Every structure is written in C-alpha cells, then in structure tokens.
C-alpha cells in the first residue's frame, strides 16, 4: 500500500533573529555581524502513515509538532529531507482564520472553501450539506461578526470535512464546541477513518488521544521518542512528564 504521509529524514531549521530585527536601520547596522541564531526544530524525523490510520502527535511545547504539520501542509519548506502528504490534503483552520467578520456565513463558506482548495462549483454542490452539518441554517446570511466562536468553529469544521480529504491535518482545535457537536465531529472522524483518510493531529489532551488515535508519535526535542500503540506511548510520555516534571 502506498503511504498517505511519508516523512523521511526530515530536518527543519528556524533562524531566530534578535530583537530589533525588522527595521532597515538594524539591517544596515548589523550587516557585518552575525544576525541570527539557528534553531533546529526537527532533527531527522522519519515515519509513514497509511490510509485509514489516525496518528496523534504528542509532546511538550516547542518540540516541533506544529512545525511538522506545517511542513506536511506545504506551508513550510524542509531544510533537509522530505515531507509528503499524498492526495487531497485538508487543514482544519484556526478558529476564524480565513474568515472575514464583515461577510456573511455563505460568503465566508465560499472564501474558506476556496482557500482550502475547492473550486467554486464544488462549494456550490456541497453548500447545503455543509450548512446542515454546521447547524447554521438560521444564521447563514448573518455577518460572521455576530457568530459565537462555537458557530464559527462548526462552519470551519464542516468545510474541512466536506473537502473529502485523503489526508487531514488538525492542530489542537478538536476540543472546542459543545458536547453535542463534539460527538458529531467524532462520528465524522470515524467515517473519514473508515473511508481511508489518513489523519494526523496534534493534541495535549491525552483523553482525546486515547479515544481517537490508532497510533501515537511522541516528539521530544525534535526527535521521535516513541511511536506505537496509543496506550503504550501515552503511558511512557506521562511517565516521563512525571519523572522530569516537564516531559522533555
């Protein structure tokens, strides 16, 4: 089987610029000086994810979880190695990212769908179904500024789900919304799993990780510290957190 996500010897370096970077004056003043420090966020990561797998990425803050998602979503470029997600890749947007507060729900639906990579015709086709999923029939012609954060999240999740992704990248957003909608989201995620979608999600909520993931990857200091069955890796991770008091 061809892996949906293939990461091979992935390295990512960020340049940390010092404080007054960003003005022409400081650029001129520091021409001859070393302006930056290198930070290797990912240091030689390799793994594969196959269709139908749901992989949770866990680990303390600053260990490169979001960077990994950014590299797979082609937002960032690897410094070395490769990170490939095959097929239709959907990213669950931040609350409100890609939404415009002055536009109505429908207008934002088109905007957000196109940002994700849908054609307008595709949005035309799926519009009703997205609105029904998000339970926003009554509010769809209201400007987004009047939405609650939960309503905006429902709309965003509805669009991402209806993209019919083959790979779904989720960064810390699953925990929003009321119980009713969360249950609905989990059902959708299970449907995606059965349909062969590969899901990679970042979470700090170990209960969610144990419930949803079929496999867990534990990142520590830019390297893989554990990769395997959710209960095993989560227990090892929690053990390390308890022992060191920081998990890293």
């Amino acid at each position: 089987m061809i892996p949906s996500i293939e990461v091979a010897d992935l390295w990512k370096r960020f340049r940390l610029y010092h404080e007054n970077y960003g003005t022409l004056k400081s650029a001129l003043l520091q021409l001859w000086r070393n302006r930056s420090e290198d930070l290797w966020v990912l240091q030689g990561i390799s793994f594969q994810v196959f269709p139908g797998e749901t992989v949770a990425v866990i680990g303390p803050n600053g260990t490169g979880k979001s960077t990994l998602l950014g590299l797979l979503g082609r937002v960032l470029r690897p410094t070395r190695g490769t990170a490939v997600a095959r097929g239709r890749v959907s990213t669950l947007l931040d609350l409100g990212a890609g939404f415009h507060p002055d536009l109505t729900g429908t207008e934002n639906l088109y905007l957000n769908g196109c940002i994700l990579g849908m054609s307008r015709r595709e949005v035309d086709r799926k519009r009703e179904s997205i609105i029904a999923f998000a339970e926003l029939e009554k509010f769809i012609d209201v400007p987004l500024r009047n939405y609650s954060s939960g309503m905006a999240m429902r709309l965003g999740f509805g669009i991402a789900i209806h993209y019919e992704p083959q790979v779904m990248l989720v960064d810390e957003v699953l925990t929003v919304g009321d119980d009713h909608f969360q249950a609905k989201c989990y059902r959708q995620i299970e449907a995606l799993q059965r349909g062969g979608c590969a899901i990679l999600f970042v979470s700090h909520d170990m209960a969610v990780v144990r419930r949803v993931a079929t496999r867990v990857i534990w990142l520590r200091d830019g390297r893989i510290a554990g990769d395997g069955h959710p209960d095993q890796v989560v227990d090892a991770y929690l053990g390390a957190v308890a022992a060191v008091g920081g998990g890293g």
Partner: protein
Amino acid sequence: MLNDLRELVRYRELLITLVARDLKARYKRSVLGFFWSLLNPLVQIATLTVVFKMIMRYGPANFGPFLFVAFLPWTFFQLAVMDASTAVPSNVRILKRVYFPREVLPLANIGANLIHFLMAMVVLFAYLAFWVGVSFSWQQLLFLPLIVLLQTLLVTGLGLAVSCASVYYRDVHYLVTVGLSLLYWASCIFYPLYSYDQGGTVVKGLSDSPFWFVAWINPLVPLVTLYRQAILTNAAVPDGGMGVEGQLLARLAVFAVAMLVGGYALFNWRKWEFPELT
C-alpha cells in the same frame, strides 16, 4: 518561474474569490458603497481646481478634465501599491495554516483596485461626454486598453515587490507612504509634460524645467501623459508634442515589463519564508 505561473493558474478561483471578498467587504455597512471611492478623487479635484484655477490663476484651460484624466489612474496606482504593502501581514493566520501561492494575496488587492478604477473610468467618460462635451477621437481611444494593461502590469510588479519587502522590513510601509507623496507631485498630474501655447500665454511643462529628467525615470509621467493624449486629444487640452505617443508608449512598456518580471521574481524567490517571518 514557469512553474509558479502554472500554480497560479491552478489557483485562479481562489484569486477571484479573494477579489470578490475585497470588493464586498470594503463597502459592507456603508450606504454610498462604491461611490465613496469616487468621492475621494472628486473632492481632491474640486479642491485643486479651486486652488490652482481660482486662487493662483494657473494652468491649462479645462483644468477639471485635465486633472480628472490623470487623477483616476493615479488613485488606482496609489491604492494598489498601498494595499500591497499590507497584503501579506494582514493575512498571516491563513498564511501559516494553508498552502496556496502567496502571490494571490497582493494580486487580489490589485485586482479589486483595478475593478474600482475601471468603474470610475466609466464615470469619467460620462462626465467628459455629457458635462464637458468632449468629443472623443476613436482612433486614440483604441490605445486606452493598451495603456490600462501596461499600468496594470506596472502596478502588479511594483505591488509584488513592495508586498514582499514589507514582510522583511516594517519601514517599507512608511517608505511607500513617503514615496507616494513624492510621486504625487512628480508625475505630471497638475502640469503637462510638454509646454504649449494657450492663447498667447505659455503653459510650462515638465520637459522645460530643470527636472526634465524625471520624465525618464518616473514611469508615471509617460503613463499620465498617454492617458491624456488618448482621452483628451480633441478636447482643447493639448499636451504638446503630438506624435510622441509611440515613444512614450515604449518607455512605459519597458518600465512595466521590467517591473513585472523583477517584482514577480523577487516575490517568488522569497515567498517560502513568509510564514516563518510574519
């Protein structure tokens, strides 16, 4: 660069949607809507006419049309470049989450401003035809789409360069503001390029001044002059040296193409770094 272009074509629907977002969002909750974008140049033209014509008693006859024809392209240029300088930073949140060719952000702003400009031009023609009573020369008007196209290329190139540079240096935004107010006075908006005789008195143009060289380094000088020649040829607002259109057109075209290629190359060279910097 060819690959970048192909990718941009693939994402054309996103570009169209973003242009629509710009146009829709700008005038939500406003009564006058599009007319606000006309009101600004109108007020400026009225003010300038009062100052130059009635107080200082300067300038060519038909000063109103003379200004109006230059002012709308100028407004397009100014707003498009200003918007481009904030295009990338104001969309950081999507930029960091989803992949799409980053150039759609400044291009969407430029597209929205182009549409505004074209709508304003319709109003200009109505004003010239029914209020001033200008009779147009159709042969000259045929040049108009070409001039608009060249201006759009010029604005696009400059907009891409500015929006890329603004990610790296905050100063760019301020630099653009200062640069635009300098260009405002250096682009033949209030005075002609070539001097001409007007019933005994000579209206002095840029080419007879110590600053004649500005006509060679500022692409807006041929641009504005060409708009005047194309629209106002028969309107008793001569701009001297007839038959120089070809040369002006060539000058403008060189600037426009160079700016477009340079700006696009610069943007593509750096666009991968944007999410790491903003």
